[in-house]
């Protein structure tokens, strides 16, 4: 406790006297002196001046003139012959934070000296201007060994499309580490053009480079997928889903096809699990005031009194990739219900959270996001659906979930084909049968079967 009090006192003093420090921090001579005192720094010596410069940098955040002065003095030091490598490394770290395009000419020179290439790359990493890439291009042609690799890595990291040709020229480089770095960078840039180039080399390349090429090619597909060029990505994943590829590459391609719901799974060959036995609620839980079993079906809600709130009967088991088939009907065209998939119960609440294959009113066949985004994620074509839908009689609902893809069919007509854009959402969860709050109404469910795709050992 005592330390905290002390600390708060120090802190409030700092706040009180900040304006005075700012003036001092911005002083040109002070900055020049501090930078000079760091210039000849060797490892193991006092770091007091470095900390002082860092403090000035922080305190001049809103003082562009002082910042310009700090950068100017650092650049002067970086050009000076008496500045040690240890000091240059420190200055480059600071330029990574505050460096403007004024740093580029000095960093460009440092790139060409193998002793300082990596620290220059460290500073250039955060430069937003495209001009930084020109300096990297120039250096690429002049450097060898690890210095060259540092520049290649950074060009890949910066995803510079103008570097593609120069990188391509390095793919067949004799020095394997450089060839591998170039291949990796092409994958990191990852646009269609890179995928095309990599695929050309894959046909005929040294054995040592095969895995790196396949990996970079896979990386291109990952980028294409991320940047909404799904069909191009799928084509690459399908190509790489081949036993001739390295095992980890094939596994990765399959994993991504699964994620996109594009893995070819024949659910008809999978033995179904009967989720509801027609007689008991075994394997299910929910508020039984609103769920009963009648004529081999689950009846949700009632026709006598208002349904005060949403109620769900849900499975005890979670499911991820599956095809769910069931029969469902509503008591009237005004009723509202639905089937939760990949959902969870909201703690301390009667609600469920997750995707719902919707039923009733104008929601039939739509994919709704219940207690999460609270909106229709994908809607059905009502006119087409109307041709096959039985408003107050049994309908067959088919729900197929593979990876982030959710597809819905009613009586054989596909209403929704949805790919979840948010990769961070959980795609595993419970199945729940809903009766929506509102006037007296019933939803009926029967013949509930699920075919589960398991990734197994």
């Amino acid at each position, binding site marked *: 406790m005592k330390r*905290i009090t002390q*600390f*708060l006192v120090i*802190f409030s003093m700092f706040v009180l006297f900040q304006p005075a420090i700012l003036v001092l921090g911005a002083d040109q001579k002070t900055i020049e002196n501090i930078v000079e005192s760091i210039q000849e720094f060797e*490892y*193991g*010596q006092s*770091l*007091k001046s470095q*900390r002082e410069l860092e403090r000035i940098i*922080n*305190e001049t*955040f809103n003082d562009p003139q002082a910042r310009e002065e700090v950068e100017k003095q650092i650049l002067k030091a970086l050009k000076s012959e008496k500045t040690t490598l*240890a000091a240059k*490394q420190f200055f480059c*770290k600071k330029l*990574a*934070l505050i460096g403007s395009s004024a740093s580029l000419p000095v960093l460009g020179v440092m790139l060409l000296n193998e002793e300082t290439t*990596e620290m220059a790359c*460290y500073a250039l*990493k*955060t430069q*937003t201007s495209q001009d930084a890439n020109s300096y990297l291009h120039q250096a690429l042609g002049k450097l060898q060994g*690890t210095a060259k*690799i540092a520049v290649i*890595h950074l060009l890949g*990291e910066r995803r510079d499309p103008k570097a593609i040709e120069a990188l391509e020229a390095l793919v067949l480089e004799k020095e394997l580490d450089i060839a591998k*770095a170039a291949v*990796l960078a092409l994958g990191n840039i990852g646009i269609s053009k890179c995928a095309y180039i990599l695929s050309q080399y894959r046909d005929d390349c040294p054995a040592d480079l095969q895995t790196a090429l396949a*990996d970079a090619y*896979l*990386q291109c597909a*990952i980028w294409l997928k991320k940047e909404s060029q799904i069909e191009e990505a799928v084509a690459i994943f399908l190509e790489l889903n081949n*036993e001739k590829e*390295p*095992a*980890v590459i*094939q*596994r*990765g391609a*399959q*994993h*991504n096809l699964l994620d996109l719901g594009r893995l070819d*799974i024949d659910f008809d*060959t*999978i*033995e179904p*699990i009967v989720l509801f036995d027609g007689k008991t609620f075994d*394997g299910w839980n929910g508020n039984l005031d609103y769920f009963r079993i009648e004529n081999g079906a689950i009846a949700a809600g009632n026709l006598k009194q208002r349904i005060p709130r949403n109620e769900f009967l849900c499975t005890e*088991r979670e499911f*991820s990739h599956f095809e769910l088939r069931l029969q469902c009907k509503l008591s009237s065209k005004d009723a509202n219900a639905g089937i939760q998939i990949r959902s969870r119960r909201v*703690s301390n609440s009667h609600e469920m959270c997750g995707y719902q294959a919707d039923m009733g009113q104008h929601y039939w066949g739509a994919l709704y996001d219940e207690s999460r985004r609270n909106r229709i994620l994908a809607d059905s074509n009502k006119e087409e659906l109307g041709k096959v839908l039985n408003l107050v009689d049994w309908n067959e609902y088919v729900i197929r979930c593979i990876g982030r893809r959710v597809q819905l069919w009613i009586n054989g007509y596909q209403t929704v084909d949805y790919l979840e854009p948010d*990769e961070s*959402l959980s795609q*595993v969860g419970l199945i729940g049968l809903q009766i929506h709050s509102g006037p007296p109404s019933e939803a009926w469910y029967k013949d509930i079967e699920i075919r*589960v795709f*398991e*990734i*197994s*050992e």
Partner: protein
Amino acid sequence: MYDSKKRRLFNRRAFLKISALTSIAPAVIPSSALGGKDSIAPSDRIIIAAIGTGGRFMRALLPAFIHEKDTRLVAVCDCWEERREKAKAEVNLRYENEDCKAYRFHEEILERDDIDAVILATGDRWHAILSALAAKAGKDIYSEKPFCLTIGEGRKLVEITRKYGTVWQCGTQRHSNPDYLYIIDVVHQEKIGKLRRIETGLGDWGGNGHAKPEPIPPGFDYNRWLGQAPWRPYSPVSVALWRNHWDTSGGVFVDMGPHMYDLAQMANQSETAAPITFSGSAVFPDEGYSNVPFEWHMEAEYENGVRLITKMGTKSIRFIGDEGWIEIIDETGEMKSDPKSLSARSSPTSMHYNIMSPHIRNFLNCMRSRRLTVCHPEISHRAHTIAHVSNICLRLGRDVQWDSKNERFINDEEASHLLSRTMRIPWVL
């Protein structure tokens, strides 16, 4: 290189199977059902290697992984000869055989086709790189925290595990500890009313010195040890104080933060986001090798208004609602609460925070089912993000606003410059 018939696809050894799931039995092998030492068929064992064999591995991970009877630890790797030899001897002593091999280079472990998973217990600067290399080699990964040195590393690792379909668990074992889960449940059940405030103590921090260069001692591969960090000459001080420098770690926030923020995220049900505003102050040593906060106070606020306070003092986490609060003391597992009745389950033991088995069990089960672990990369990355953003806020000495969706700072491009950095060649993510 690899046997195309044996190592393939999603799973560890077999071809992808579309299997009919006809029973409701969970795809789990409870350790209680596994019986004696040799009751698991060798072909069903998960073959494991450890990279980094310092104190964390020797004291916690080695016994915990050996305890799970469906695993076999067959290889250890460390850049300190003495450490790897000691680890190898300990593993072989426990198994009463000579099967475990010691390696200086992780490449030799990652090349071994029989190894299914790696445990990463190296220094922080290595976690993300080794996770990436192991994933690329088709291994699954149990990585100690902090699993990333920067927010950029964290995001890349999320993507890398998605690229290869890797099963990856962060070593934030409190996430699976029944007592912590009990407290989280109390919060979710709103037994403290609506959650308003989370307060966590991260303990104390310190240690400093001048890192004077010295000759590298025999049996120590310093270049390997240094890894991605910018080059500097060997000094026993910089090696001992690696947790106290931005180049190799990030001080107390990345050391204890990932544990505590993981719990905060769970309680607040914001596992895939982070607070939006960060405001704090810290005292940094103004001299010496150490450059991380020695004293700190951090206040962050989530989009839903819940405040997350990070303090000094006893390692603990307290959840405050508008009708009460509940707290757990990290070292012992002791619970405190208002009303008192909420903490009825408290059963304090020393090293309570180090109950490993449920967390490791979850990892091994997920290796078999190919599902996401409880501390999978995305949620772990977000918990780590809170630690890293806090550090950036304190380093820059100004309040920052965080955009979880785009993973950038709002109206502060300069702060975003600290999101990632280049690595020393040849290391790359």
